[in-house]
């Protein structure tokens, strides 16, 4: 059974059809990659999966059970963790406080319940090093980390708190080549630990090496849905870039040159 499955899912905002008839699956230990240009419906899709918005057509199944999340908290309770591009962390707070934010370890009883700061610090350090992320000091504000490191902290957090599905919203968009490589390495690591990963990107070169399945979106609808064996990177890039449209444009340009 798939961890997540959406069948002919759709969402309208007033008279705007943001998403229609999109289907895909997310399996444990596999990466499903969602590709598409700006406005293709990528964000709408992940917001439905993350519980920020609700779908109004089609079916959304979590481990076979149809669901409709009322809040991100509910999605989290179902084991679906989302790491947003820039909203993943609170910059002024320390690494370990960010790591445990919303699920803090406590000691003591009743009104005297306190944060377990020692446990927080040590668990953070250990969870990060288990993912192969080596931080100098978990007391430093997250704002002092690089963009890639911050993504990694958020990914490690999701893995630590037992996420079954990890949704990554353009994790490599604002990063340099090397940093993007590091983040993709952790995506692969999360996958190898048995998580289902949804990777949103518009860069086929980032998507192809780690993904098992590709969902291409365009103007709110599915443009194609491929297993990795069905498509190579050149074809993926061609489809991403507009495919047939681009060829028509090229043809037109040649006509102009001739004239």
């Amino acid at each position, binding site marked *: 059974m798939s961890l997540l499955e959406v069948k002919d899912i759709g969402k309208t905002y007033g008279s705007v059809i943001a998403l229609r008839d999109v289907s895909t699956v997310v399996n444990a230990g596999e990466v499903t990659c969602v590709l598409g240009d700006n406005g293709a419906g990528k964000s709408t899709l992940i917001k439905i999966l*993350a519980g920020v918005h609700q779908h109004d057509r089609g079916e959304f199944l979590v481990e076979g059970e149809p669901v409709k999340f009322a809040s*991100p*908290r509910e999605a*989290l309770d179902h084991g679906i963790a*989302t790491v*947003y591009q820039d*909203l*993943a*962390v*609170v*910059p*002024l*707070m320390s690494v370990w*406080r960010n790591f*445990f*934010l*919303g*699920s*803090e370890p*406590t000691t003591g009883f009743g009104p005297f*319940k*306190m*944060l377990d*700061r020692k446990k927080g610090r*040590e668990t953070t*350090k*250990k969870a990060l*090093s*288990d993912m192969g992320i080596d931080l*100098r*000091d978990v007391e430093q*504000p997250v*704002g*002092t*980390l*690089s*963009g890639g490191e911050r993504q990694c902290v958020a990914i490690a*957090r999701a893995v630590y708190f037992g996420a079954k599905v990890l949704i990554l919203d353009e994790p490599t968009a*604002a*990063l*340099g080549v090397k*940093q993007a490589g590091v983040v993709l390495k952790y995506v692969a690591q999360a996958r190898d630990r048995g998580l289902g990963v949804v990777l949103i990107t518009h860069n086929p070169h980032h998507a192809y090496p780690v993904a098992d399945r590709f969902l291409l979106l365009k103007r709110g609808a599915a443009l194609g849905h491929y297993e990795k064996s069905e498509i190579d990177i050149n074809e993926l890039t061609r489809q991403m870039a507009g495919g047939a449209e681009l060829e028509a444009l090229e043809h037109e340009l040649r006509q102009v040159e001739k004239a």
Partner: protein
Amino acid sequence: MTAAIQSQPDERVAKKGLTDRLVVRPEIGALLGAVLVFVFFSVVTGQFLSPLGVATWLDDSSTLGIMAVVVALLMVGGEFDLSAGVMTASTSLVTAILATQAGWNVWLALLASLVFALGVGAFNGWLVMKTGLPSFIVTLGSFLALQGLNLGVTRLVTNTVQVSGMRSTSGYESAGGLFASTFTIGGTEFQSSIVWWIVVTAIAAWLLVRTRFGNWIFAVGGSQVSARSVGVPVVRTKILLFMGTALGAWLVGSINILRFASVQANQGIGLEFQYIIAAVIGGCLLTGGFGSAVGAAIGALIFGMARQGIVFAQWNSDWFMLFLGVMLLAAVLVNNAFRRRAERVRR
């Protein structure tokens, strides 16, 4: 391997010196300022260090300090409460009117004003969260509304703009014993509001850095969207913070009415900015997400020391405003420099 990671400090982190560790504390600037002001007035005036002098400036700092601390928590949570100053008068008035005009027992009247305060606080918080409007403008509204209510209701009930005669009400003695008594150290009387100030500061400091709720305060002030996406109950946290400010205003209102036994309907107006100034001097960022309860208490101490020190030195009190302005600017510059350091983004 993992055990080594847990127990051994990372070899790449140099053992931080005392100064390095202190510099990142939000209250350090305020502490230096307090020492400076203390030494200055101790040298300039003889009275400042006398027991009576100390009692005077501690008293002046105490009620301001209680409010500065609760306002600091709210500011760390990313919001303002401009109705906090006038709330101290509103709670006094509710207590006084119920006790003197309706003949209620003072304890019962205190309970009623507590419910009133928490209600106003919850309303402020709910409105801010519901509308998404800046709390600056929402609480400016409730500030003006309360100011009008204070004057209007007082005039309706008493035909004057003050309520007095608390001393003859039932329960005044026992309630006064809790909120507005004095204690003696070495022959000098100190107000019990100083003890309240210390207690409130200790509780707030503990709440802010040692509890889960404190973690949420930093998170909702630092980045509300991130906090919500990891499951922090943002709305509840912020409403509770507004209620906390109202609770502080109730405490100060109760201390005032039981100490002076009368209250002016126009009391408290303008104090809200003093609370914010004290909190900022204590290291709170105006943008939220960073600050300290102890710092705000020290900010209030600077306020009290300077205000009374200027009186002891027999200068014109006009100079106090100049001092305040310079102090505030210095604090904002220091805070700003810190923020840039802590929030700097390396790509």
